[in-house]
């Protein structure tokens, strides 16, 4: 795994439908300055900048890293952009961490963002090239059949997705940065919303958000403030169309989890991890990922959700921050998971802090559930 790496600063913008008051540059800078302030540093203390975002068609800005160099204090420094679809926020953190672990730099600023209000993500994801006759309409249209297949295989009762939709929005009420805040959210409210891509209801999907998230990563000798130590990092990918590919429980996700657990010395994730921030853009992905990430046996993930184990007061809280279901600036969503995991073990998560959290999982996935990025962070130095 190389040299030790720690998160020493975290900055987030408030997530909302439209940030009309700032440019893209102003948005990323807001998160970056908050992360630097948290670390007690300035741009001068940063050796390199890594930027992540989802496809360029989302805002129509090609090579955004070049445009953002000024806003992120990157003049005269290495600056690079990462792109792994929806998992990009997680991959951005991991690329930044690798620059520390490899001994190349001592302090790296990682930033991810999306300003979805500048266009329309469903349009950007469904450009309909000639000759191809894809019938996939946006992300929901793609994932709905795989959720249906999970329900068939596992025999999960129909209300499990609703439980996740309610739980994550209840958690969001405790997170000042969260986008969707629905006081009094309950099952009936979720169940009364229309099916968009059956079996996915309106309130079982993520919102469309503007926002940015940033972290300052440091080598051991460059740590300031309260560190969250990186205990393991892993990325995996797999082709989207491959005979025998399991789209419900992808091999890439299983392999990625096994790798990150091995590095962190985790034998039983449910027991050894205190809190997980996972990429759940559609409610049913909580039970699906509970299985994919080894928190439950195959076909049993929904039982954990149903028992309340993943609630804020459960034995393995998932998405204490409210998760992607409550805030989704797509490019940043993975980095927010990684940052929230760090905040938990730093004891700085605020009202949604899980008491005594010592080890946390950050997880992101992207594409057709084919790109995975994960890290385990801990209070103690590994």
């Amino acid at each position, binding site marked *: 795994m190389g040299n030790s790496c720690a998160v020493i600063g975290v900055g987030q913008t408030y997530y909302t439908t439209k940030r009309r008051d700032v440019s893209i540059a102003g948005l990323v800078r807001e998160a970056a300055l908050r992360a630097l302030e948290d670390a007690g540093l300035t741009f001068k203390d940063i050796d390199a900048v890594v930027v992540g975002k989802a496809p360029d068609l989302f805002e129509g800005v090609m090579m955004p890293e070049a445009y953002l160099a000024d806003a992120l204090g990157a003049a005269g420094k290495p600056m690079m952009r990462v792109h792994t679809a929806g998992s990009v926020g997680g991959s951005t953190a991991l690329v930044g961490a690798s620059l520390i672990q490899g001994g190349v730099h001592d302090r790296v600023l990682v930033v991810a963002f999306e300003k979805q209000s500048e266009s329309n993500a469903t349009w950007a994801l469904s450009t309909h090239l000639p*000759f*191809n*006759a894809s019938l996939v309409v946006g992300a929901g249209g793609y994932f*709905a*059949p795989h959720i249906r297949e999970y329900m068939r295989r596992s025999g999960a009762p129909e209300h499990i997705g609703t439980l996740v939709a309610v739980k994550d929005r209840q958690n969001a009420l405790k997170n000042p940065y969260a986008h969707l805040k629905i006081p009094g959210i309950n099952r009936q409210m979720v169940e009364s919303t229309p099916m968009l891509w059956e079996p996915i209801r309106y309130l079982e999907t993520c919102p469309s958000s503007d926002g940015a998230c940033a972290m300052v990563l440091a080598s051991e000798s460059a740590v300031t403030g309260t560190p969250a130590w990186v205990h393991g990092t892993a990325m995996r990918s797999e082709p989207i*169309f491959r*005979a025998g590919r399991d789209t419900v429980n992808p091999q890439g996700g299983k392999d990625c989890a096994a790798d990150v657990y091995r590095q962190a010395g985790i034998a039983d994730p449910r027991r050894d991890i205190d809190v997980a921030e996972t990429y759940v853009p559609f409610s049913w992905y909580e039970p699906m990922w509970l299985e994919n990430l080894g928190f439950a046996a195959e076909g049993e993930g929904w039982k954990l959700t149903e028992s309340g184990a993943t609630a804020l007061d459960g034995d393995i809280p998932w998405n204490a921050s409210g998760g992607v279901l409550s805030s989704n600036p797509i490019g940043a969503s993975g980095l927010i998971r990684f940052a929230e995991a760090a905040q938990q073990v730093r004891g700085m998560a605020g009202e949604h802090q899980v008491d005594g959290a010592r080890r946390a999982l950050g997880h992101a996935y992207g594409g057709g559930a084919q790109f995975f990025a994960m890290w385990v962070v801990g209070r103690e130095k590994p």
Partner: protein
Amino acid sequence: MPSEPLVADHVLEFPGGYTRTTGPVIGRFLTELRDGRIVGVRTAAGRVLVPPLEYDPDSGDAVTGEYVEVGPAGTVTAWTWVETPLEQHPLDRPFAWALIRLDGADTALVHAVDAGNAKALEAGTRVRPVWSTNRRGHITDISYFAPEVTKIVSPVKAAYKITASRSLTHFLEGVKRGVFVGCRCANCHKVYVPYRLSCPECGIAITDEVELPDTGTITTFAINNLPDPRAPEVPFVSAYILLDGADVPMIALVGGVPAHQVRQGMRVRAEWVPEAERTLSMSNIRWFTPTGEPDAEL
């Protein structure tokens, strides 16, 4: 029978218009307007009144002689939308009458705001004056206020010429004949459709071509309630269909059956458009429709 009432038009207008002696305070305000500046006057209590008044409305005291340049930008504090402007109105298109508190002022000025549509305005919207080209010392020297620029439209358009790959062209030639062309990897023996030239699992070239039947099984599906130009109506079913003999499913429309009667495991067959209407495209298949056979085991 009553006689018709006598009706006549009448205009009551003082020839040339009344004059208004401005007095020193309003006169200063209008003189500054003619020069393209907006000023207010400070009261003895320290408030800046815009437009200025000769006497402090709070106390009745005379205002001080201190004139303060304000704005030109300001903030809308309240507004009402005029959908159908009258002839005397400052704009000939829908606009808002708004209370605008100019920067540095303690009171709000009434003026017109050209906001395009009512949704573009809210309390807090920042506006700036658009000056008349022919200023003469009148409130209409400001033609109207307009919102500050907060957003531009940036058209991005890239025109491409798309050439279908050799393998896709071969597949579509098959679809034009009413046949699904697939291929089999010599190493893993998996059958892929559409026809392709390499195996995504083994990474080797595929040379073995196979023709697949137009029947298959729905492995899973979504019922889409959002309209789409490629589907005849909502709800429509987009399904993963595993053609008989294939190892990867295709995504296609299912029709000829109510959406909520579609099942995982349902047996379906392609419904082809008449041969004369076919082109080199997937639209040769109208949709997949149930065969009526018993469901397949998944």
